[in-house]
């Protein structure tokens, strides 16, 4: 089973929940899919055993074959190609790697070359499978990295807990879409609620069941619960606001190491997710 841990808003506690959930469930596989700034390793100090490079295509145009018919530029939904006055311009950062231009070119003038956009690291941490992606700085899209990470999950292994990136962009949609359950970690603030709603919309659109963890729970938590009630999405766990939780985090200490009493709550959370996925 694959569980995506997402949030919409950044800094709500995705990593706190993902790491401690993985540490509380036997044989878990922890996947850090926030490839722009992976941070689960700070809490788990994994040993990396292999590194898989991840590539993205770049269209390369052979101008001796090209007759500037523009079929490639017209086909490209992302405007990564332009044909102006007997020149073909390629904008690699806009290319999504579909290779459509290669196929539509009637003169076979385009070939797909590759450039490395990052890598996936696979190793072990405290008896768990540990997978993390790293997108190279300046590369705009982590989608290919996230897909490679998910492909590396051992299908015969235990549950995969996937720490998604913040926001609701393509890489997050891919993470949620490939999971059986989406755990949404939020905080009871207007910003938390605003971005939570967007993340809820994504999960709903993709047909992935979701549940909510309210972190830094305090007096104003009703705004989250009201929204959950309205959408019939369960609140599965509340983590109260506690300065000591933040202190443990700042030392790189997982929640369940600093406060072992949370282990049982996270196990019940996992059992509840399992129950909801199975039925």
């Amino acid at each position, binding site marked *: 089973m694959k569980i995506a841990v997402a949030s919409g808003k950044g800094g709500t506690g995705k990593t706190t929940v993902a790491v401690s959930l993985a540490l509380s469930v036997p044989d878990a596989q922890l996947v850090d899919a926030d490839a722009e700034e992976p941070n689960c390793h700070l809490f788990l100090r994994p040993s990396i055993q292999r590194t898989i490079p991840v590539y993205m295509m770049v269209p390369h145009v052979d101008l001796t074959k090209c007759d500037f018919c523009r079929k490639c*530029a017209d086909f490209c*939904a*992302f*405007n*990564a190609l*332009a*044909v*102006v*006055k007997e*020149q073909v*311009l390629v*904008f690699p950062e*806009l290319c999504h790697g579909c290779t459509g231009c290669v196929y539509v070119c009637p003169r076979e003038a385009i070939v797909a070359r590759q450039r490395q956009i990052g890598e996936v690291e696979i190793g072990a941490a405290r008896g768990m499978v540990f997978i993390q992606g790293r997108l190279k700085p300046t590369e705009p899209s982590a989608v290919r990295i996230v897909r490679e990470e998910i492909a590396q999950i051992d299908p015969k292994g235990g549950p995969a807990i996937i720490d998604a990136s913040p926001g609701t962009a393509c890489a997050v949609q891919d993470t949620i879409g490939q999971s059986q359950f989406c755990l949404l970690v939020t905080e009871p603030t207007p910003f938390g609620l605003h971005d939570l709603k967007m993340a809820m919309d994504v999960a709903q659109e993709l047909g992935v069941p979701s549940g909510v963890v309210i972190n830094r729970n305090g007096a104003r938590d009703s705004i989250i619960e009201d929204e959950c009630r309205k959408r019939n999405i369960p609140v599965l766990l509340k983590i109260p606001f506690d300065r000591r939780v933040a202190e443990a985090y700042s030392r790189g200490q997982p929640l369940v190491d600093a406060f072992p009493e949370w282990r049982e709550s996270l196990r019940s959370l996992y059992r509840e997710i399992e129950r909801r996925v199975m039925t």
Partner: protein
Amino acid sequence: MKIAVTSTGSDLDAQIDPRFGRAQYLLIIDVESYEVEAIENPNIAAGGGAGIQTSQLVVDRGAEAVLTGNCGPNAFRTLAAAGLKIYTGLNGSVREAVESLKSGELTPTEGPSVPGHFGSSG
């Protein structure tokens, strides 16, 4: 000579639109006769690459120069590849901009005036 001017409206008295790729209108203007072809920009809501598409459009219409407020790196590269002169920093009405070009007051820009995604809201 035909030029392309980014505009908030469809005639010469409209204001310059400071965005290039996502300008509301592109006015293709014959600088001798002041004949105007107004094009509603189809790329306003493009997901990405609006500057590239808008460049392609003005090149196809035979413009030899572009007058606008700002021009990002991808649009600049596309327009420059097609040999167009790019004038940025313009404001006021389209007519005033055309007149200042004709009187020789303007100097073409040598590089993009803003970073990418400048004219997109998201």
